[in-house]
């Protein structure tokens, strides 16, 4: 009985907003619109459990659709990066 393990999909957890990988063409369009380089976006680490779950690769841009109490729905982007220095 103790070995019984529930199947868990972290993407469905209450705290995890929707993440989706943006195709490169669209990513370029967004970067142009925001007038920034990809590294200027917030980052998301390649060893982040959500990144692993959706199968994003370093260099991808991930769109995050958050439920925001002030704006209803807010869209954010994160740039998938590889750990170089381990801080925190």
């Amino acid at each position: 009985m103790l070995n019984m393990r529930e199947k868990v999909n972290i993407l469905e957890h209450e705290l995890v907003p929707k993440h989706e990988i943006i195709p490169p063409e669209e990513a370029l369009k967004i970067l142009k619109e925001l007038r920034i380089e990809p590294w200027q976006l917030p980052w998301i680490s390649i060893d982040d459990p959500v990144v692993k779950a959706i199968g994003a690769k370093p260099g991808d841009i991930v769109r995050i659709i958050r439920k925001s109490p002030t704006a209803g729905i807010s869209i954010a982007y994160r740039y998938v990066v590889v750990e170089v220095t381990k801080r925190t």
Partner: protein
Amino acid sequence: MIALEEQELKSVEDILEKIKPYVTAQIYIELSKKLREAVKKCNLKTEDVEKIAWEVVKRYHSAFIEPGEAVGTVTAQSLGEPSTQMTLRVFHYAGVREYNVTLGLPRLIEIVDAKKKPETPIMEIYLVDEIKQDLEKVKEVARRIECVYVENVTQELSIDYSSGVVVLKLDPEMLSDKDVTVEDVVDVLSKLEIGSIEVSSENPHEILINISEEYLDPFKMEKLKNMILQAYIKGIKGIKKTIIQRRGDEYVIVAEGSNLEEVMHVPGVDWRRVYTNDIHEIRRVLGIEAARAAIIKEIKNTLDDQGLDVDLRHIMLLADMMTWTGHIRQVGRMGIAGEKPSVLAKATFETTVQKLVESAVTGEEDSLAGVTENIIIGQLPPVGTGIVKVYMKLPLLESSEKGEE
């Protein structure tokens, strides 16, 4: 009459089409729904509808932050000032609840300092719909989660040094409370391989352990005692205590201690709603975005507890900064403040001399682009109207010169 209404609705459609580029999709959807209702209910004229629609656009745009607004500074002040009013060093609800929670300023400091482990980790474990109203089944899940060591069910442990017999007296009340049988304890103890084990014939709750010779060293007795008491029987490691609370129409398990990953896998637990106050653990198991949400939730709860009202946007900005690199950074000299590109800005925070020496040794430059640096040297900081610079489009200049010729 009906035809007239249809016409009105069509003109609403036209107006909405006009304002569409100025607002977000969500506002557009909500506005069109509400306007249509209002037209039907209040017999609005087309001009009024148009006025309302443009007023919405105006209000929406006036809610934007102005370019050059020093949002970071305002956030720091908006969070800093209320925190001076918090009750200092209050650690728990005295007598109100059965468990301790870090509250107020200590908890706020814990969050912004990104402490590896919270002082009082607490989990909120919600249960699946089928059992969440059934107290007996909830208790069963709670028992499965709570970590039990031999220590927790022991009343007394005595060692007879001359004969090398350890007498372990179990507490029958605790045994039934934790749903552990004497056989379970015997099983666990036999796995330690410290000697032969038998249940006393006089008392069914007494276990006798004949220690084998290799452990009979008097100097190792203390170690042996700990080994017996710390032997793990069942449950999830890290969960020290569980309490069942009633919230609305369901029972919730509140657990002292935290182990998100394992608890999520327990059958009967609604893993979609499991929550812990350990933000690093959330980052590890659910990712950086969940950690961001948790930081916001935790800070908001801490402030609300003290009756302080801080605009959520400030907290969101703080959480955004803390999670910017994909890891949780503390707000301090090892984190956000310490990673600023400017030497002077870093020196303003803590350890001034050290930072200045470090920068001098590595030959750092300061481009004076930020707010702090410019205030130190008494220059106009790039904030508000100070951020504006005059640019000239060169092709325009050329063409005007040509025109003169």
